[in-house]
């Protein structure tokens, strides 16, 4: 059984993901969180195999800018938990930051269910999954209109 924690502030998406993943025989969602602090607490409480982590999430008082900043904390405190970053849009620097921080996966949130499930299984086996188009967008080196000020 692969155990999963979902950290995502948008309740509709979080609930749909949780229900969907729980329908798989080999996956079990053991915790959910809606902000960065809760994500960290939930991971520490349950040491899941996988953390599905949203990027743009409230910090919950943890004093971080976004979900990517808790990746190193998770890796440090729960080394057996592998992190898959989920995001809606690729922004310059996201992929690099995610990988440098020790994430094992980088996928769009709307990744089709069977690919997401497959990605979770691959990461649980120690492989890495990266959505190629998202990667291209997140790596774009030119001046991006969406780059942070």
């Amino acid at each position: 059984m692969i155990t999963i924690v979902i950290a995502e502030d948008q309740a509709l998406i979080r609930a749909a993901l949780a229900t969907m993943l729980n329908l798989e025989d080999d996956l079990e969602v053991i915790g959910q969180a809606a902000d960065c602090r809760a994500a960290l607490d939930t991971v520490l409480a349950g040491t899941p195999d996988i953390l599905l982590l949203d990027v743009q999430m409230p910090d919950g008082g943890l004093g971080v800018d976004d979900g990517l900043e808790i990746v190193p904390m998770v890796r440090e405190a729960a080394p057996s938990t592998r992190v898959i970053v989920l995001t809606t849009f690729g922004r310059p620097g996201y992929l690099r930051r995610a990988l440098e921080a020790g994430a094992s996966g980088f996928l769009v949130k709307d990744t089709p269910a069977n690919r997401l499930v497959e990605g979770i299984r691959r990461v649980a086996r120690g492989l890495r999954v990266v959505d190629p188009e998202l990667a291209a967008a997140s790596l774009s080196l030119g001046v991006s209109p969406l780059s942070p000020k």
Partner: protein
Amino acid sequence: AATIGITIGATLEAQHTRRQLELAEERTAVLAVAAERERIGRDLHDILGHSLTTIAVKADLAERLIGRDDDALRTEIRQLAEIARQSLSDVRATASGMREVRLGPELAAARAVLLAAGVAPITPRSLPQLGDDTSELFGYVVREGVTNVVRHADATRCVIECDSSGISVADDGVGITGPGEGSGIAGLRTRLDAAGGTFEVESTPQGTRITARLGTTP
């Protein structure tokens, strides 16, 4: 020789200035477009990213619920339809928001353009409550009036006055010296006619004023 030297120097300087400013002009345009895109990109992101992602994830979930749990399936599909309809009205609002002309934003843009052109803008501190149609009409008057001031007037200041029934744009420039109306002024006249109002241009060598008045229902 000194005279010629200085003169040539100044002319070269003028050329250099021109060149620099052409470059600056291009950069400004590019940056302005980029900034606007960024803003719209963020709007798009906020409005649609969430909705479309939710729709996609819920659809996958719904597919998996078929034959397993019809009630849960129905709930997912209904929510999904609702999200699609809500997003649709958001898209319509945003798309028309990008196209619409309104007095407030036009005044803000006018101030910026005038300042950049070295014309002191004197604009109303507060705006009357206006319906959308009037706000749009007055917005067009400001846009065209100020463009003319910047283009033709050689003015030092531009005064915009407005109440709920009319708006005027006045400058202290050279006045209208050319042959007459181009399409800018003609266009405003047509708009005011269509709205049942009046449009007037007064011009002397001390400056120009255009005034738009809504029709009075006597």
